[in-house]
C-alpha cells in the first residue's frame, strides 16, 4: 500500500520539474516535426513555391515553439 508520505518523498526525489519540461519539449518537437514533414513534401510537389512555403514553415515553427516555451518556463520557475 503506497504511503502518501513515501509518494511525496518519491516525487521530491524524482525532480518532477524536469519530467514536465521533457514532456513539454516532446509535444513541441512532435508538432514541429509534422510541420517540417508537410513543408518538405509541399516543396517537393511544387519547387517554385519554395520561398513562401519556407516562410510559412518558419513562422509556424516559431509559434509552436512559443507554446513549448510556456511549458518550459512554468517548469523552470516551479
Amino acid at each position, binding site marked *: 500500500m503506497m504511503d502518501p508520505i513515501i509518494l511525496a518523498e518519491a516525487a521530491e526525489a524524482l525532480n518532477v520539474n524536469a519530467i514536465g519540461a521533457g514532456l513539454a519539449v516532446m509535444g513541441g518537437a512532435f508538432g514541429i516535426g509534422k510541420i517540417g514533414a508537410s513543408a518538405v513534401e509541399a516543396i517537393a510537389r511544387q519547387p517554385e513555391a519554395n520561398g513562401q512555403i519556407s516562410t510559412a514553415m518558419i*513562422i509556424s515553427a516559431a509559434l509552436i515553439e*512559443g507554446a513549448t516555451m510556456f511549458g*518550459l518556463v512554468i517548469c523552470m520557475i516551479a
Partner: protein
Amino acid sequence: MIHSLKIGIVASSDPLAHVVQHEFITIGGFVITNHMIMILLAAVLMIAGFIYIARQKTMVPTGIKNFLEMLLVYIRTDVVRPVLGKDTDRFIKYLWTVFFFILTLNLLGMVPIDGILYLVTGGGVDLESQHRAFGGTATANIWMTGALAIISFFMIQFNGIREQGMGPYVKNFIPHVPLPLVPMMYILEIVGALVKPFALAIRLFANMMAGHAVMGAMIGLIMVSNSYAVGGVSVVGCALFSILELFVAFLQAYIFTFLTTLFIGAAMHPDH
C-alpha cells in the same frame, strides 16, 4: 590542474546565474543592473546607427548601410505592407523600432562583454567574482519583454478604436453569432486580446532565457566533470549552439514584429 586555471568567466555552476540581472553600480539607493545598461546601450547604438545611415550622400548604400537598409526594406515590403496596405507608413516607425530594438538587444546578449573586459585587462576587472555584471541579454528579462508587449497591446487597442470608432469597434469585436452566445464570445475575445500580447512577451523571454541557460549549463558541465575531454566537446557544442542562437535572435525579433503587425491589422480591419 584545471583548478589552477583562473577562469573568471565561469565562476558559478548555476546556469541561470548568467541570465538573471545583476547589479552593476548602486547610485544612492538606486540599483543599476546590467539589463538597464544593455537597454541604454542598445538605444544609443540604434540612434547613432540609423542617423548615420539616414545621412548617406549617395542613393546606393554600401557596407553596413547596405545591410541595415536591406533589413529595413525587407520588413516594410514583405512583412508590413502585405498586412497593413495603405496604413504602412503610419505604423512602420513603431514596427521598425520594435524589430531593431529586440534584434539589437538579442545580439548584444551574444557578445560576452564581461569576459572581454576580463581578458583585455588581464584579470583586473573581474566583475564575475564580485557578483556584478556589465553585459547580458536584456530580452531574457520578463519585465523587459512584458514592457514591449504592453506597448504593443496599447498600440493594437488604441489604433483599433481610433480607426473604427468606439461603437463599431465593440460591435465588430466578436464574429456574428446568435444572441445567447454573445456574452460568452465577448469573454473569449477579451481573454484572447489579453493573452496574445502575453504570449508575445513569454515567447521572446523564454527563447532568450532558455538559450542562454542551455549554454550556461553546457559550460557548467566542464566544471562539474573536471575532465579535458568534456571541456573540448562542451566548447565545440557551445560554439555550434551559438550559431543557432544568432538565428533565433533574428527569428524572434521578426516574429514579434510580424505578430504585432497582424494584430494591428486585425484590430483596424476585422474580417469577421
